[in-house]
């Protein structure tokens, strides 16, 4: 006989048997002694939908078929995705290497060069060698007698031409008694007498006519000299041009020979052929730069320094900036970028400080994650991408345009205005896998129109999986594999059973087991620790239970304090006796990763009124919308059940006593209804029972969450006060499958000291709580409401 009279006459549900309160995992079903005997699990545990989505997403080679792996953290999204990608990537081709080189036509737009996989470094070395060779070969060409002689010819010719022009003027002047004199800054004309310039005294003695004649003559000569001097820069330019041509001629053989060798080496690469041809032309144009670096002197012509392509490092322009290379790689790359900032994704252009200014060139272009993953796979955390400024936009832009365009954020936003580059974009072919919470996926889907275009494959991970003998064994193999990977002790079969029970409890469902790999790994690590403390070579069931108990112990300070308040009477919760309009409801509190249940007193008062049920929580703005909805449903129940053909002339108020924080959820709506019915019928409710479950307008009791924690919350209070055998909890029938109660609760039920009642309807519940048939309660309420209706009519007539 249970603790309550459940005779069929008053239609009360029977309490659940102890066996129904927790679905045990029987260690005897396992044929192994410890997990050391078990092979690794092939495939992924309990994620068939996600696995097939990954296979599809990886297999399909179409634009926009990028993946979004969604599900709660710790479920193993990264591991599963990576494992699948690795198996695929191995067999795929290693992607090409990429370099940035100088663009001889448009220097601020460095060119991107594609090289076969693993050959970029060799090409860079070949270019370095070429420059070294040119630095030897070009100065050698300038040392030849041919060059020296011809250069001297050109220089002498220019000098002679200039001298000749000056001499001609000097001779004409001399014929007319005037001397051309070289002054410190130019030339001057003066009349001469006896081969000497006339002195000021002699000048003043000359007749005025003679003075005028000489001045006029000098004026003419000065004009001639000016014209001659104006001609000279032209001759100089002409000489410079001839010297350049000479330099080109004498170096051409050496330069062409060396570059042709390199061209032959890379004959199969048309892009490199074009680049090397440009290098050849540029070297011939700037041969002086090679002399400079060889001699350590600035090349000069007639004492004037020649202009240099880049005064600081003239030969830097022939460098090769290897952006990405795969000499050590096999197969397609898989890249995980932990810090997906804009620059970390698309690459960046660094600057160096030179004389207080920031300068850059193509050698300072650095690769981003997209470059590294190009031709393969890129894994990113969705939340991190979204929280990095402009990273999401950069990622979408790259995927949409299928090219990686390096653009510094500061430049794009106009925050910095240093000299920068526009590197040629690199073609992009990558499969991006975003890993994130489901909420992010749905939000992006709803608010970002491009998201659906670019991330067509949703990889939805399950939080839990079905329990059964087959899946238990698969789970045991997963445990074995994880223990080996983490270098933990093997687990006895009892320990495996204890782990499965614990993870079933975590799933909040007797027919399911949690798929959270993080929870599993933590539990195994902690069990291994306790096995170590106990000096065991194998993890036992006791070690797992100790790990679970200590996890709870570390987290349950608040639960203990709350229970202490109840036991000391600060929070009023009765667990014996009866009282009308008062019921024990159950709430779940979640703090950090730990959740626990605790009883709350719900009270109701009723009086004559206009049919309104006053939710004090809502009025005081402590109730959430779902809670308010639950209370409004009660009005619907009352109106439909009792006042179908007449006005509901009652006002009632409902409150969660001693609740000072917010109340949310509708799991207490059945408790509130019982309190209300009890208040209306003036039928006392047994305080030894607690209630959970939501109701609908028809009076059906519906499933709620956290049923295990709620039962245990009331059980703990009752046990602390002493189990009387009359105490118990009413739960929705639909929640029976979720029961994975603690061993002590199960033991108490087995011993007849505690009961769990599965309830389908409000009628069953009110009968259990009041000990009276539901029909009797309803009849009393109807009577009461009729009285109220009469009184209300009387009131209205009086008015």
């Amino acid at each position, binding site marked *: 006989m249970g603790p309550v009279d459940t005779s069929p006459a008053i239609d009360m549900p029977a309490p659940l048997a102890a066996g129904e309160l927790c679905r045990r995992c029987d260690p005897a079903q396992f044929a192994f002694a410890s997990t050391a005997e078990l092979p690794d699990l092939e495939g992924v545990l309990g994620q068939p939908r996600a696995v097939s989505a990954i296979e599809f997403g990886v297999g399909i080679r179409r634009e926009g078929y990028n993946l979004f792996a969604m599900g709660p953290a710790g479920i193993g999204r990264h591991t599963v995705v990576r494992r699948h990608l690795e198996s695929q990537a191995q067999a795929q081709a290693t992607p090409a290497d990429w370099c940035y080189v100088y663009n001889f036509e448009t220097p601020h737009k460095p060119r991107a060069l594609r090289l076969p996989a693993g050959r970029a470094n060799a090409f860079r070395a070949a270019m370095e060698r070429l420059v070294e060779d040119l630095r030897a070969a070009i100065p050698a060409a300038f040392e030849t007698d041919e060059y020296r002689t011809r250069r001297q010819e050109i220089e002498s010719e220019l000098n002679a031409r200039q001298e000749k022009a000056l001499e001609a003027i000097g001779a004409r002047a001399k014929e007319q008694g005037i*001397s051309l*004199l*070289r*002054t*410190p*800054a*130019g*030339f*001057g*004309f*003066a009349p001469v007498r006896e*081969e*000497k*310039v*006339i*002195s*000021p005294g002699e*000048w003043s003695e000359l007749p005025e006519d003679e003075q005028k004649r000489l*001045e006029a003559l*000098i004026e003419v000569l*000065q004009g001639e*000299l*000016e014209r001659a*001097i*104006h001609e*000279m*820069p032209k001759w100089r330019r002409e000489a410079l041009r001839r010297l350049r041509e000479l330099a080109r001629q004498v170096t051409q053989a050496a330069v062409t020979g060396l570059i042709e060798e390199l061209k032959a080496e890379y004959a199969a690469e048309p892009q490199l052929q074009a680049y090397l041809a440009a290098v050849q032309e540029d070297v011939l144009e700037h041969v002086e730069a090679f002399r400079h670096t060889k001699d350590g002197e600035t090349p000069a012509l007639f*004492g004037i320094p020649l202009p240099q392509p880049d005064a600081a490092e003239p030969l830097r322009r022939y460098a090769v900036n290897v952006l990405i290379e795969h000499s050590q790689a096999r197969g397609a790359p898989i890249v995980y970028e932990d810090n997906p900032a804009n620059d970390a994704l698309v690459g960046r252009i660094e600057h160096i400080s030179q004389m207080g200014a920031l300068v850059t060139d193509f050698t300072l272009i650095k690769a981003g994650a997209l470059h590294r993953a190009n031709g393969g796979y890129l894994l990113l955390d969705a939340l991190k991408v979204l929280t990095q400024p402009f990273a999401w936009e950069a990622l979408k832009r790259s995927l949409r345009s299928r090219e990686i365009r390096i653009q510094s954020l500061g430049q794009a936003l106009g925050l910095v205005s240093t000299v920068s580059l526009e590197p040629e974009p690199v073609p992009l072919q990558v499969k991006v896998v975003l890993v994130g919470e489901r909420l992010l996926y749905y939000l992006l889907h709803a608010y970002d129109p491009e998201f659906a275009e670019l991330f067509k494959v949703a990889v939805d991970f399950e939080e839990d999986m079905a329990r059964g003998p087959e899946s238990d064994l698969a789970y045991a193999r997963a445990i074995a594999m994880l223990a080996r990977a983490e270098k933990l002790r093997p687990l006895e079969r009892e320990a495996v059973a204890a782990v499965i029970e614990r993870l079933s409890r975590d799933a909040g469902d007797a027919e399911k087991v949690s798929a959270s790999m993080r929870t599993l790994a933590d539990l195994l690590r902690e069990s291994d620790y306790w096995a170590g403390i106990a000096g065991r070579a194998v993890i036992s069931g006791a070690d797992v239970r100790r790990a679970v108990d200590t996890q709870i112990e570390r987290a349950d300070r608040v639960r203990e304090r709350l229970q202490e308040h109840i036991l000391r009477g600060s929070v009023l919760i009765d667990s014996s006796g009866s009282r009308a309009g008062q019921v024990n409801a159950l709430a779940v509190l979640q703090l950090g990763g730990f959740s626990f249940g605790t009883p709350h007193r719900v009270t109701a008062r009723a009086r004559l009124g206009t049919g309104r049920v006053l939710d004090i929580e809502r009025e005081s703005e402590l109730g959430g919308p779902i809670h308010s909805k639950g209370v409004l449903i009660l009005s619907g129940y009352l109106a439909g059940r009792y006042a179908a053909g007449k006005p509901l002339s009652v006002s009632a108020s409902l409150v969660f006593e001693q609740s000072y924080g917010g109340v949310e959820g509708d799991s207490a709506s059945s408790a509130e209804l019982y309190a209300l019915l009890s208040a209306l019928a003036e039928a006392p409710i047994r305080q030894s029972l607690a209630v959970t479950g939501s109701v609908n307008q028809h009076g059906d009791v519906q499933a709620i969450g956290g049923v295990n924690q709620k039962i245990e919350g009331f059980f703990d209070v009752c046990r602390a006060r002493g189990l009387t055998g009359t105490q118990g909890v009413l739960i929705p029938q639909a929640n029976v499958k979720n029961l994975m109660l603690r061993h002590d609760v199960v033991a108490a039920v087995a011993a007849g000291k505690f009961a769990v009642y599965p309830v389908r309807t409000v009628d069953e519940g009110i009968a259990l709580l009041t000990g009276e048939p539901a029909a009797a309660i309803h009849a009393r309420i109807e009577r009461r409401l009729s009285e109220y209706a009469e009184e209300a009519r009387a009131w209205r007539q009086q008015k």
Partner: protein
Amino acid sequence: MKIRRIVVRLEPRPAGLEALAQLAEELQAELLALFVENADLLHLAALPFAREVGFPSAIRRSLDSAAMERSLQALAAELRRVCDAALGASSVKWSFRVARGSPAAALAAAAAESGAATLLVPSGADPRAAPVVVALPQLTEALLRELLEGKRPILIPEAAP
């Protein structure tokens, strides 16, 4: 015949000072770098209509004596610096001198000073080129002016006792 002195006339942007130093070292001769403040230039600057056509700017500027004095002084200082830089490190005994007057007269005077065999090197001439040998008594200013145009060194043998 042992050359004891080398006298070189300096002009703006002198070249080949190192080569001269080397020659002097080989001959164990002393080297005199002579800058002549040309009297003709000073006269030119003093003329009322004096003009200078800049080279290579071709701009016409008026001249005056004070400005000419200043530029000659600046040029002398610059040449001294150049000599210091080029000859300072060599073991040759060298001196720098500024003279005023006609270049030919100044050179002739410098050559006649010691009576030792002297090599006169006109500005910009190759010091190792075959010299024109002229005995001191025959070295008139007019002849010297003519010889200086030839850009060849002029060897003045030791004066007869």
